[in-house]
């Protein structure tokens, strides 16, 4: 079944009726409330027009009305699957505006939390990708493991999904005594399930046939569309903000940047984007192991939290960090009061989704769903 090449469309010779299909906003596999206007010829997609904004929750307007700490709950709700990673660039941006130095222990806890959340996010991404392909069981195995990670986060922050844990200058709560051991147990479980899913789903022949050689995204197109994260790395571009524009304490850890290699198909296909996520989970496990070993036991996580938050007037900063989905940036403009003048979130999924019409043309309708799944979007971040 390796003959599934991109089907060449020659409409000059083959005139046939095209059907306009409306996929979404309520559709089981648009990952939320995305609407795709699809033009299909038989089963072949000839045009895709994404219509977004069905979850436009006025994030940027809310930011103007809130004080700096009050924005954090709203930042959580952007990419609600990886809320810790969302909070981080925002908190870093404000810390840079205020020129706050964060204590050592806080940095380590932040790294551990962000990487745990990265694992949780990739678990959902791979799980829903498998679900799009019709495999339901790996989905539940991943969600079972994700639960163990969420328990750790809940014990630290008090919430299961939207944590409000990273505060400007510190953390909302210190970690609990058995934290390190539980984190190590959780990543042990993650590795076990990953090995299982590799056999059950990723290297399954049907799955390979479904996902290899479709949705090919060349590296230059990816950069021109400003794709980032696994979407870009799946195309073979070795670029990770944690290494290439390093922030926090990531330069202390030893980890690789997995890139797509075109192992079973062409470089930059859906399978490559997916396998990058699987390998990244392993890299995150490595980072966590190192961070747990190096983390200082003592220290106050709240000591650097400022009492008054008034960044200098006119100061502005664009801070980006490696979200599980790619580059998440916050452009923060201060007007000298305790409320920001403007916060713009550069949503990773928003940018990554814009490449969908380009890479899904000429494939079959069933492939469109998989290509969408392989980009791993979250509508909260697309629409903001």
């Amino acid at each position, binding site marked *: 079944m390796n003959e599934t090449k991109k089907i060449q469309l020659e409409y000059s010779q083959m005139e046939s009726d095209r059907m306009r299909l409306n996929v979404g906003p309520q559709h089981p596999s648009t990952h939320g409330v995305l609407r795709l206007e699809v033009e299909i010829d038989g089963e072949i997609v000839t045009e895709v027009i994404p219509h*977004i*904004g069905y979850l*436009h929750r*006025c994030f*940027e*307007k809310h930011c*103007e009305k809130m004080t700096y700490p009050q924005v954090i709950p709203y930042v959580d709700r952007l990419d609600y699957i990886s809320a810790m990673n969302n909070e981080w660039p925002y908190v870093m941006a404000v810390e*840079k*505006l*205020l*020129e706050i130095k964060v204590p050592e222990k806080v940095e380590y806890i932040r790294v551990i939390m962000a990487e745990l959340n990265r694992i949780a996010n990739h678990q959902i991404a791979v799980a829903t990708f498998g679900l799009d392909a019709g495999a339901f069981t790996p989905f539940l195995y991943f969600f079972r493991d994700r639960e163990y990670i969420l328990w750790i986060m809940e014990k630290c922050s008090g919430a299961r999904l939207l944590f409000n844990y990273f505060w400007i200058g510190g953390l909302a709560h210190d970690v609990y005594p058995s934290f390190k051991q539980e984190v190590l147990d959780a990543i042990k479980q993650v590795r076990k399930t990953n090995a299982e899913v590799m056999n059950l789903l990723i290297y399954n022949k049907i799955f390979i046939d479904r996902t290899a050689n479709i949705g090919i995204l060349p590296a230059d*197109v990816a*950069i*021109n*569309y*400003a794709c980032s994260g696994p979407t870009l790395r799946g195309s073979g*571009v070795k*670029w990770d903000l944690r290494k*290439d*524009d390093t922030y926090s304490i990531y330069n202390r850890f030893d980890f690789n940047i997995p890139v797509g290699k075109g192992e079973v198909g062409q470089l930059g296909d859906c399978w490559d984007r997916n396998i990058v996520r699987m390998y990244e989970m392993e890299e995150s496990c490595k980072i966590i192991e190192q961070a747990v070993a190096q983390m200082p036991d003592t220290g106050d996580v709240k000591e650097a939290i400022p009492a008054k938050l008034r*960044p*200098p007037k*006119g*100061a*502005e*900063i*664009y801070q*980006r960090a490696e979200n599980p989905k790619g*580059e998440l*940036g916050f*452009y923060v*403009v201060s007007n000298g009061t305790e409320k920001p003048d*403007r916060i*713009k979130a*550069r949503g990773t999924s*928003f*940018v990554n989704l*814009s490449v969908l019409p380009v890479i899904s043309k000429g494939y079959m309708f069933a492939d469109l769903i998989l290509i969408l799944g392989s980009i791993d979007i979250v509508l909260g971040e697309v*629409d*903001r």
Partner: protein
Amino acid sequence: MLANEIYEILKKEFGDGILEFKEEAPSDPYISVEPSKIFDICHTLRDSSELMFDYLMCLSGLDLGESLGIVYHLYSFKHTHKIVIKTTVPKETPTLPSVMHLWRTADWHEREAFDLYGMIFSGHDNLIRILLPYDWEGYPMRKDYNEPEEYHGMRVPY
């Protein structure tokens, strides 16, 4: 390459088109430019071999009171340097050239800026609303925006 060197290069090429260069901690250094020249400047930024800004990180709209601002955050994969380009347009005639054909990612960013702030990007292929419904009125991120009372028979305020 440092920001002031980039400024020198641009200043040499565009002269009056470049208005200001500002670099003070904690803010990012930025170059503010003439809005009508933005396409040419961005073209140089993208294609000249020593700059090579191939990655548009972010394009944001701003409400500055009397005028609207547009901010471009650029990054270069090759040289790993970044720069911020700023420009302002008056609120009454918020027109400036589109950079969509330089960086395709600007397509949706510009549509979003049009949607929320009402800037007109001339040269954009498909400048329609993106986040809000197509029949929405007004530009909600402007500071003088008032919430509508009703939309399609549904009450909007709480």
